């Protein structure tokens, strides 16, 4: 297999790599959990990881990977059987093994060989062996590692089935999914082989699939499935070695058995026990496919077994003939045996009745799709929404009575909406993967920083757009690092302050107010207001002593680039880069950050992320001849002001009173440099907008209506425009700007400074 690889083999290897990666990702957190609580379930899960990786790697002849996996497995086995105490070093070792496996998988993916990893493999397996041999010297020799003797996980199956093993929903699902794939591959292989029986490759393929399936069933203790697949394996083995079967082509029977397996699998997917009806009779059917071996029959006739095996070696001529020549068997014996073989063949043929195959559909199927294709699809659907708008609101149709057209158009709109929602949901993935990656990070850092921490994950099932997940990965890493390094105190300090010595970090995700909120909460020392102020003043970020700043404004200063109050730069954090990254990445996805902190009690950082990046609800507003879109989410209310509600400060700033509050007024026509219908505030509309904690009023001529808008970026050529976040295409084909509430005020202030040099730059912050 290592010399020349054809496409199929490459595919197998790639599948192995992806599968193993998934497994490692899933189990890394479990390994770290081991350090805290070593319940048998976690232990078994990890054991299975290394075991199946070992099996697959062994099969594909990635020896170094096999070696490490095996060593890790042996160590785990010892711990599991209570022959060895779990110590923190073991957890580190397992983590190292995981890291090695990841690297090795990378190597395998690029070069289809893990030879490059040999030095690392030596080191890690040696470490693992030391751990194994150290305290428990008296292990059975068979436990010792020898890469050459490694076999795919057939032989050691029995000791892997734990009656007390709990199967979680998640494990069950991944088992079902994987098995579906295996069965399908086997089915395809069988069909191909049915057409070209001389093709021995496809038999090997089927065999492998069934074998893996059997192995999986064995792990999970699904006895019925295991038995049936085992019998199928036996039949296939016969075919592979070229012996005769009762029927010339057993495809039909095997396919029928596959269907049974599928049925059993569906049972399991439904959460029921594994159960195959009439299992025994099916097993019997399969067994009947195999004619008894001539050698066995001869032995029954009293022929020397040694002679038979030597005869089989030189099996060029019919076995009976050879035996007769050697004088080990009489012609009579042979004739009798041959007769019996034929008889049982006939019998088997009769018994192996043609089975009617009933097609059972698989429960759930996943396919892996290239992300680029998905993006294209979503873009196309975005285009379609626009095209649909242009069609239905086509100016040519104005004033026409088109009853049927209206109906058709309505129908189409509905379909397009559904399509749009569907497309958006495709991109949504649960945050659990992201969160789980953090477990490892927190573990590593807490060890490094000498802190005890309990990481709690809440709302892992919350779904977020894939791009968003990618964008918030880095911010989460930085925020967690900060929480651990700066936020949480050392155990000694915590006890001194009357807190539990183990700190808590909560990482949660949930849907709220049309956004996704990802929150990182720690119970550490909290932000130190005085320290931040001191630093801000020394850096010249604020004027004066900062006594007029709100809590929030002070907290937000930690996002300034290069801002760090850490007295010492550690290798974990303290350079003041992290928070800047957090802010920038969140701005990219139009997210917001809220920080609340109580000195001495902890910090909570809330990342508020819009659900989708592509479509927003917008309010269409008009100023003069221009229409713009204001995101509905930031609108609090809109009203036509009375003159007495307006106050003009001596600086020339206009303030509008809304009940008990005064909000600065931003004139949209000045930002866009347009002529409005009227400059009189009481002749237009004020829209109260909120961005983060600040509120202001936007002065416009008229509200035109609300609509879903597909966000398009302004061209890269233009770059970022203050006050504008993008644009959209209207029903009539025109382009309309989408206002960016966050930067409107800033943009307005700039305009005012330009427009009226006398006006003092202050404005609504």
């Amino acid at each position, binding site marked *: 297999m290592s010399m020349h690889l054809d496409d199929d083999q490459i595919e197998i290897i790639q599948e192995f790599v992806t599968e193993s990666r998934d497994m490692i990702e899933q189990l890394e957190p479990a390994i770290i959990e081991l350090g805290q609580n070593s319940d048998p379930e976690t232990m078994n899960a990890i054991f299975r990881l290394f075991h199946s990786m070992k099996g697959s790697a062994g099969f594909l002849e990635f020896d170094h990977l096999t070696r490490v996996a095996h060593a890790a497995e042996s160590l785990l086995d010892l711990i599991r059987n209570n022959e060895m105490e779990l110590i923190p070093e073991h957890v580190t070792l397992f983590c190292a093994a995981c890291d090695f496996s990841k690297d090795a998988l990378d190597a395998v993916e690029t070069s289809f060989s893990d030879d490059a990893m040999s030095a690392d493999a030596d080191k890690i397996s040696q470490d693992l062996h030391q751990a194994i041999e150290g305290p428990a010297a008296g292990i059975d020799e068979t436990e010792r590692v020898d890469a050459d003797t490694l076999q795919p996980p057939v032989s050691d199956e029995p000791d892997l089935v734990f009656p007390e093993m709990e199967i979680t929903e998640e494990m069950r699902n991944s088992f079902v999914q994987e098995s579906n794939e295996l069965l399908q591959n086997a089915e395809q292989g069988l069909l191909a082989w049915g057409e070209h029986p001389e093709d021995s490759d496809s038999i090997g393929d089927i065999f492998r699939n069934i074998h893996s399936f059997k192995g999986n069933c064995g792990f999970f203790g699904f006895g019925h499935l295991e038995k049936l697949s085992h019998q199928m394996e036996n039949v296939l083995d016969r075919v592979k070695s070229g012996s005769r079967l009762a029927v010339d082509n057993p495809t039909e029977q095997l396919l029928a058995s596959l269907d049974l397996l599928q049925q059993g699998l569906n049972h399991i997917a439904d959460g029921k026990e594994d159960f195959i009806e009439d299992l025994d009779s099916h097993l019997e059917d399969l067994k009947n496919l195999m004619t008894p071996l001539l050698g066995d029959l001869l032995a029954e006739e009293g022929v020397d077994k040694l002679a038979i095996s030597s005869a089989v070696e030189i099996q060029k001529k019919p076995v009976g003939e050879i035996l007769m020549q050697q004088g080990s068997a009489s012609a009579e014996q042979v004739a009798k045996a041959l007769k019996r073989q034929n008889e049982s063949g006939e019998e088997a043929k009769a018994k192996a009745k043609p089975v009617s195959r009933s097609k059972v559909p698989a429960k759930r199927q996943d396919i892996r799709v290239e992300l680029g294709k998905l993006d294209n699809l979503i873009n196309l659907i975005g*285009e379609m929404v*626009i*095209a649909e708008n242009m069609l239905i609101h086509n100016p040519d149709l104005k004033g026409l009575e088109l009853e049927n057209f209206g109906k058709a158009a309505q129908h189409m709109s509905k379909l397009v909406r559904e399509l749009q929602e569907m497309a958006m949901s495709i991109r949504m993935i649960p945050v659990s993967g992201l969160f789980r990656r953090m477990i490892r990070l927190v573990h590593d850092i807490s060890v490094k920083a000498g802190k005890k921490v309990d990481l709690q994950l809440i709302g892992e099932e919350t779904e977020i757009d894939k791009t968003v997940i990618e964008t918030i990965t880095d911010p989460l890493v930085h925020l967690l690092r900060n929480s651990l390094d700066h936020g949480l105190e050392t155990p000694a300090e915590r006890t001194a302050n009357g807190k539990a010595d183990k700190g808590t970090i909560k990482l949660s995700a949930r849907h709220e107010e049309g956004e996704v909120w990802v929150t990182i909460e720690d119970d550490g020392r909290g932000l130190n207001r005085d320290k931040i102020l001191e630093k801000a003043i020394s850096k010249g970020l604020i004027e004066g002593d900062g006594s007029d700043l709100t809590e929030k404004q002070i907290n937000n200063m930690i996002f300034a680039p290069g801002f760090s109050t850490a007295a010492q730069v550690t290798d974990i954090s303290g350079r003041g880069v992290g928070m800047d990254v957090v802010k*920038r990445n969140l701005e990219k996805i139009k997210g917001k950050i809220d920080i609340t902190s109580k000195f001495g009690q902890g910090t909570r950082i809330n990342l508020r992320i819009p659900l989708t990046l592509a479509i927003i609800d917008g309010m269409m507003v008009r100023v003069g001849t*221009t229409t713009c879109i204001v995101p509905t989410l930031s609108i609090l209310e809109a009203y036509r002001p009375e003159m007495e509600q307006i106050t003009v400060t001596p600086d020339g700033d206009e303030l509008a009173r809304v009940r008990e509050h005064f909000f600065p007024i931003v004139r949209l026509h000045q*930002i*866009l*440099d*347009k002529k409005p219908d009227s400059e009189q505030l009481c002749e237009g509309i004020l829209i109260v907008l909120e961005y983060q904690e600040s509120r202001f009023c936007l002065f416009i001529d008229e509200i035109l209506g609300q609509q879903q808008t597909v966000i*398009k*970026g*302004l*061209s*890269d*050529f*233009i*770059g*970022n*425009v*203050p*006050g*504008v976040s993008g*644009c959209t*295409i209207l029903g009539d*084909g*025109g*382009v*309309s*700007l989408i206002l960016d509430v966050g930067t409107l005020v800033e*943009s307005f202030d700039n305009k005012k400074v330009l427009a009226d040099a006398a006006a003092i730059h202050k404005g609504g912050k």
Partner: protein
Amino acid sequence: MAEDLSLNGSGNEDTQKDKYLTFHLAGENYGIEICYVIEIIGIQSITEVPDMPDFIRGVINLRGKVIPVMDVRARFALPARDYDDRTCIIVINVDSTEVGLVVDEVSEVADIPENNVEPAPRTSKNSESSYIQGMGKMNKRVIILLDVHKLLFSGEMQCLTQTDNDEE
């Protein structure tokens, strides 16, 4: 009204060599290499974008794509002129950036072999000549061949993109 030339940068190199799309601007003939031209469309309603240099007129919708539009007259600081039915937008694609150029009138696709192209005159006073790639001679006419890269990215536009980068 869209006259699709279906000539992309990726098109057949040989047939596009030495071919220039020529247009009128304030009484002069200008040309740009045909390989950059995607299509020519009539003038349509342009949505203004605030805080842009005055030669960036705004953005238009080109079949679902939003592309910025540059007024070449304003770019060369020539006196402004009202758009009429001869005014065209030439859509070009330079380094996968699509931009529309507003010109007075599109004339033809001209074949100007290399040996008929003179180097650009070096008039240090006139900074606009930096957009000139060469002077093409065609019969008795002179065609100013524009360097689209400089047209799009140098000068004020450069400052604009640079400040953006700083902000990022």
